Each structure stands twice: as structure tokens, then as C-alpha cells.
């Protein structure tokens, strides 16, 4: 047996003029014989008039100016030239691959981390004192063609040393190939936002975003606008974060605190990361990618989306 509560949705929709003809006829039919529902309907009308009594409020003085001020504060979101920056980034990534590849060729079997050879010392000088990546883990590239190289560069199996990018003073001494990047890549050039949710790391990994930098506290991903927009739609980010993510028009950096991160590539022991097959591909290989060349046009497509 129906109670008046069961009629409440229909009564409420009726009060809003949201019933179709058929539903309206059925409800009116019922109202004719049900005093209790008629009472409920009148209460809904009273409630409505109470809302009408609520005045519209003026925004505080200077409201619009304060909004514009905040927009100017966060101006980096509106920066230009995404393509060129993307190209430079990829060029730098490729240069890093070449440096490490060359070093491996010169010193097969030598671990650069040991810094016992000239090459290793050069590498260290070039990239500053911050953590030097273990190349066996840091760079995994296939030599079977430029497409594969591109994929490898942008897959999460490739990790770039954060120091390389965050150290804006990186000189060209001892690393000819690094000159391809033309100018130092400052991390500050990218919009950098922090997302305090480990699920974001997973989301970015599964969407093919690369680890861009890594510190003891956090892991950062280089994120394309398309994936940033997709992340904005996920419930794992707050609306404020979503606002930023949905508005980006160029590559950005998303930083995720490490304790929260479940991204295995970021957390695991570096030595365990590379499979024997992948490792085999690194040693002694010259990579076919030409930094800044035609092969990397897919990035442009992605960025200009």
C-alpha cells in the first residue's frame, strides 16, 4: 500500500512543473481523494515562497578585481609556445639516452654510478651533484626503429633523472650530445601541480605518462594536456586541482608525494626494474632518434590537441 511519502517525488516534481501530462493526470487523480497529499503539496508551495523571500546578495566590493588578481598570480597556465617546449623536452630526453648509450658503449659492463671512469665523471659534472640515475634502470630504449624509440621515451619504463631538468646550470662540457637541447630545461618552465593521491600516479602511469623527476619525497610525471584533462575528470583529484588540470594547454608536471605513490617504477629498487631483454637493448646501441628531428612529430600532435 502506498503511503504519502511514496507520492512525495511526484508531488515535488508537480510543484516544479516537471511532470508530463500522463503523470500529472495520475497525480491529480490521486490528490482529489487524498487530503494528506494535498497538505503536502501546500507545504511545498510554502517552502517555495520561503525561498523567494531569500534576497539576492551583492558580491563584496572589489570581488572582480580580486578574481583578476588571482588570474594574474597563476599566469603560467596561460603561457605560449607549447610545441617548441615539447620538442625541447623530447630533444633533451633523447640527448640523455644518447649520453648514456654512448657511455655504455665506451665502458661496457661499467656501472656509471661508481664514477670510476672519465666518462662517468663527465656525466656527473654535466648533471650536477644530485642523484645520478642508474642507467640500467633509467633508460630503456629499443633500437628497432624510431617509433619504438618514441614509445619507449614516453612509456613509464623510462625514467629521467630529476636533477637533469631541475639543475638549470647544466653545462655542455663533456656531453656534446646534450647541446641538442639548446638551452637548459628548467623545471619551473612547466606548470607544476601537486596531487595528494596515490591513485593519480597509477592513473598517469597507465595512461603512458613518463616519470619526469624523482626526489626522495615525491615523483613527478610529465603530463600531456589530453591526459591532464582526463585526470581532471577523475574523482581522485579535488575540484580545485581539476580546475587547473582541465585548463592546461601544454605539457605540465604533476607531482605526487612518494609516501602516497603506489607507482612501482618510482618506488621499487632500481636494480630490479629491467628485464634481461630490455637490458640487452641498451648496451652498445646507438639510438636512431634525432633529437629535434622529424621522428618526434607525434608529440606535436599530442600537444596541439
Amino acid at each position, binding site marked *: *500500500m*502506498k*503511503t*504519502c*511519502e*511514496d*507520492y*512525495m*517525488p511526484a*508531488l*515535488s*516534481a508537480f510543484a*516544479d512543473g*516537471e511532470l508530463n501530462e500522463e503523470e500529472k493526470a495520475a497525480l491529480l*487523480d*490521486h490528490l*482529489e*481523494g*487524498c*487530503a*494528506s*497529499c494535498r*497538505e*503536502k503539496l501546500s*507545504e*511545498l508551495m*510554502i*517552502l*517555495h515562497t*520561503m*525561498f523567494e*523571500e*531569500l*534576497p*539576492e*546578495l*551583492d*558580491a*563584496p566590493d572589489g*570581488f*572582480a578585481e*580580486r*578574481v*583578476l588578481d*588571482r*588570474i594574474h598570480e*597563476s599566469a603560467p*597556465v*596561460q603561457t605560449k609556445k607549447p610545441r617548441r617546449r615539447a620538442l625541447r623536452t623530447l630533444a633533451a630526453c633523447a640527448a640523455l639516452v644518447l649520453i648514456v648509450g654512448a657511455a655504455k658503449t665506451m665502458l661496457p659492463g661499467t656501472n656509471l654510478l661508481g664514477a670510476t671512469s672519465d666518462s662517468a665523471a663527465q656525466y656527473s659534472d654535466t648533471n650536477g651533484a644530485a642523484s645520478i640515475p642508474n642507467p640500467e634502470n633509467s633508460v630503456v630504449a629499443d633500437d628497432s626503429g624510431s617509433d619504438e624509440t618514441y614509445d619507449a621515451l614516453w612509456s613509464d619504463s623510462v625514467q629521467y633523472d630529476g636533477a637533469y631538468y631541475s639543475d638549470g646550470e647544466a653545462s655542455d662540457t663533456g656531453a656534446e650530445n646534450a647541446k641538442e637541447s639548446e638551452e637548459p630545461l628548467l623545471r619551473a618552465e612547466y606548470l607544476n601541480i601537486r596531487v595528494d593521491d596515490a591513485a593519480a600516479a597509477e592513473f598517469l602511469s597507465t595512461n603512458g605518462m613518463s616519470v619526469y623527476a624523482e626526489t626522495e619525497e615525491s615523483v613527478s610525471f610529465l603530463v600531456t594536456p589530453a591526459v591532464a*584533462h582526463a585526470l*581532471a575528470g577523475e574523482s581522485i583529484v*579535488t*575540484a*580545485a586541482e581539476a*580546475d*587547473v588540470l*582541465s*585548463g592546461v*594547454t601544454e605539457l605540465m608536471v604533476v607531482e605526487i608525494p612518494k609516501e602516497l605513490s603506489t607507482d612501482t617504477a618510482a618506488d621499487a629498487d632500481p636494480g630490479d626494474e629491467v628485464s634481461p631483454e630490455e637490458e640487452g637493448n641498451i648496451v652498445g646501441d646507438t639510438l636512431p632518434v634525432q633529437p629535434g628531428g622529424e621522428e618526434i612529430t607525434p608529440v606535436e600532435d599530442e600537444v596541439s590537441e
Partner: protein
Amino acid sequence: MNEQELIARLRRGDETALAELMRLYEKKVYTLCFRMCGNAEDAEEAAQDTFLALWRGIGSFRQESSLATWIYRLASNSCIDLLRRGRRNPSGPSLDDEEQMIDAVDTAPLPQQELERRELRDRLCEGLSALPEEYRAILLLRENEGLSYAEIASALTLELGTVKSRISRARTLLRNYLSADGNFFEKASSKVTECNREEMSAK
């Protein structure tokens, strides 16, 4: 100002377009935020967040809804975010804030009728504050902004049926809140009443 033109200018990063848009919508957005957040400080923050989100997100605005509906969506999200972030209780200072605004305009002694209206308004604001955020947002969009169910569904990304049932539920909760002290609605009608048309029509 044509809406399409305004959107196009916003997309080009034209700040004067944003200024125009704020002139058109700031009162509505601020009022909605005030009713949602319950105090002037949070209301301004949420309203600012709304326009900031609009500015940053205009590129991804697909125009599947009207600009106004989208703005309500952003405003509603900004408020819910702010409330959740701080786990702020929207009740309490809200009424004081509003009283201050009203008092600033009119300090003359109030006639009885005005006092009653004010009490009514205060109780409604209290009742709104007591509602869960989602119910508060949906009811404000319907009652204060006059959005249709379809527009609300679009603004809040809900099914039409969910909009219908949530509005109904929100009204029931609010009505029960207001009837608690017996001043506005009779307590009796909150009890379950059988509806039996045959029985009633047989009279």
C-alpha cells in the same frame, strides 16, 4: 552581449570578457555560494574559485549545456570542495553575516511583519545548512536559481530521475527540520500517512 561571442573572447584569453561575465553573474554566483557555505568569507572564496575555474576551463567547455548552467556547476563544485576541504560547518556565523548585511542597509526598528519574515528566512537558512551538501546544492539550484530538472542534471552530472528524487528528498528533510519546533509546519504531517484513494473517494 552574445554568449557565443563572450565564450570566444574568453577562449582568446580576453580578460575584459571575464570582467563582463562577472558583472552578469557575480551576484548569482555569490548568492549561491553564500547559501551553500553559510558565511561571507567562504562564499567569496568559493565564488572566486568559480570564476577562476571558468577562466582556466573555458577551453574544455564543450557547450553541451548553456554557459549559465556550466557556471552553476562550477559554483556548486567549488562550494562542495571548499566545504569538504575544511570540513567547515556551514551553520552558525551564516546568519550573523547576513544580518550584518541587512542591518547595514536598514537600522530602523522593524515592524512585526518584517521580524517574522526575518525569522522565517533565518530558519530556512539554518535548515539549508543542516542539509547534506548535495541536497543543499540541488535545492538551491531549483528554488533560488529556477533551473529546470534537465538543467540541474546537466549542471551536476546526474540522471534526471536522481534529480527528481534528490529534490524531493531535500524538501522532505528541510520540511522536517522546519517542523521540528512546530512553528512552520505541523509535526503531525511528518508521520507516515496512508494514501488510499478508494477509501477516500468512497466518502
